[in-house]
């Protein structure tokens, strides 16, 4: 249904880091779940429009007006790593 290699690839896409044991378990569990989901193959969905939202509202617009928003200090207050005015992240370019 789903291979170990696929699980490892999906983990990278999902930005997760799985231990070999987790990957193994994930392969088995997702395999079973996906097998169950193949139940949907017996439903004829030809000419059926997808339904993304139960209440199909159209786009909601507001006036394009400047209003106060979260100030910098409040926005930074929960940051795990910051300086005076920015979020800090590991070096993005070059060797570290």
């Amino acid at each position, binding site marked *: 249904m*789903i291979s170990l290699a*696929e*699980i490892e690839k*999906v*983990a*990278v*896409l*999902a*930005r*997760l*880091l*799985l231990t070999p044991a*987790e990957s193994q378990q*994930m392969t088995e*569990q*997702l395999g*079973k*779940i*996906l097998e*169950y*989901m193949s*139940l*949907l*193959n017996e*439903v004829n*969905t030809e000419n*059926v*429009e*997808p*339904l*993304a*939202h*139960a*209440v199909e*509202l159209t786009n*909601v617009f*507001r006036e394009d007006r400047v209003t106060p928003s*979260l100030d910098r200090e*409040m*926005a930074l*207050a*929960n*940051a*795990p*790593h910051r300086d005076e005015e920015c*979020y800090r*992240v*590991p*070096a*993005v370019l070059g060797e*570290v």
Partner: protein
Amino acid sequence: MSLSELTASQLLQQLREGRIKAVEVVAHSLRQIDQYDPTVGAFLRVNRDHAFAQAEEIDRRRSRGEKLGKLAGLPVAVKDNICTQGEPTTCASRMLKRFVPPYDATVIAKLKAADAIIVGKTNLDEFAMGGSTETSALGRTCNPWDVTRIPGGSSGGAAACVAARMVPLSVGSDTGGSIRQPAALCGVTGLKPTYGRVSRFGLVAFASSLDQIGPLAQTAEDCALLLEVLAGHDPKDATSIPQPVPPFSETVRQPLEGLRVGWVREHLGEGVSPSVLAAIQEAIKVFQSLGAKVEEVELPHARYAVATYYIIACSEASSNLARYDGVHYGYRTDEKAMLAELAEERRVLQQQGKSEALEDLDTALVRMYRKTRAEGFGAEVKRRIMLGTYALSAGYYDAYYLKALKVRRLIRQDYDKAFQKVHVIVGPVTPTPAFALGEKINDPLAMYLFDLFTVGTNLAGLPAISIPCGFSEDGMPIGLHLQAPPLEEETLLRAAHMFQQVTDWHRRRPPLLDRQAVAT
């Protein structure tokens, strides 16, 4: 009569008439929490001092004859995935263990404006992903009716604290049954409103096309009271419906004339335990005795609801949870250890001359994301992120996600057709009463299949309510499910209230309360 035997509506009446004070109500609520929560584990945090100060303030304002809000003086518990400004909102996850929201959810602002007293935040499955509250990373909640069993989930704390009479009112969220299922398993009343009826601004997103906030309480009358405060259009939530809020707390007491009740054959067949089946059949007879016309309706695609739901919910979850990156807020892995580990991996690969693997090696930033998420999320959340990422990935999108959206429309059409014949559809909320703690935690598919009666409601965006309708031989509560067309919460509440006027299942209390009350 003890305060814990009074419903929210009765307490409110006594508060208004000056027969009790808000401080007494809050003191009683905190005493119940002190006495039973060490066993039950419904709360992640209790705001003792603040609750008292607020109650004193309400009593002062009342004595001065000031106009007070609709819930003035009533203690309310809030599920810990709803943002409270300045107070931690953890989603029962290591990821958000130290997160303190810079704003209130709209429902919190509404509760405050109604002078409700928020006594604390309740436990849930991590990010509301689960049906037993066992995936919480921050605490264990038990079923007050039998502490060896699950309270249900994901709003397990929200239901357990009402069942153990710690608070008269509780706010939960329901993505695939997370209000109704724990309400059923804990013997309380819980309502999932129409998608869009209540603002989700400030509700931590799990699956945005399905999530909805709603009330839990002892009775339908109390749910009406709380829903009236929570509901309403909110410009901050683009999916909220611009419709006026009916006066639920007034109309709930009006009986329905000519009620037509539908039932579905598959919901009363294979896989449903005999005690649940008997209780539901008995409940249908109660509606008949109240003058309702009962007939069979068909939901031919109901058997595909679980598969459809888990594809859509996990896909949306994988996208929503991408925001937990260790940068803006929440948990972040230890950076020194992470960089050292990465340097070591690089050194080994260089030594082995594996140039391809070397090129594929994570950058420091990507490894920070991955390690942060690996350490911050629990197993069920990771499973759903993986499932959703897979279902949305190139090559599988059409086969899983798009297919599920099409079946979703068929499920909705089934309901539309059924509701041409009947006003409400009744059935069980769960196939069995609460199972034992640990029983299904290592079998995700079995846990998912337990949701078969509730997920269809969310896929179709309908309102639904769970009300107590009996007990199993071993004394566990059973819930009756009533589903209605969009925006028909009034019908649900009135039908449920009629039922509760002639039954007393909702008045039964867990033996734990009487046992421990005698002991002290």
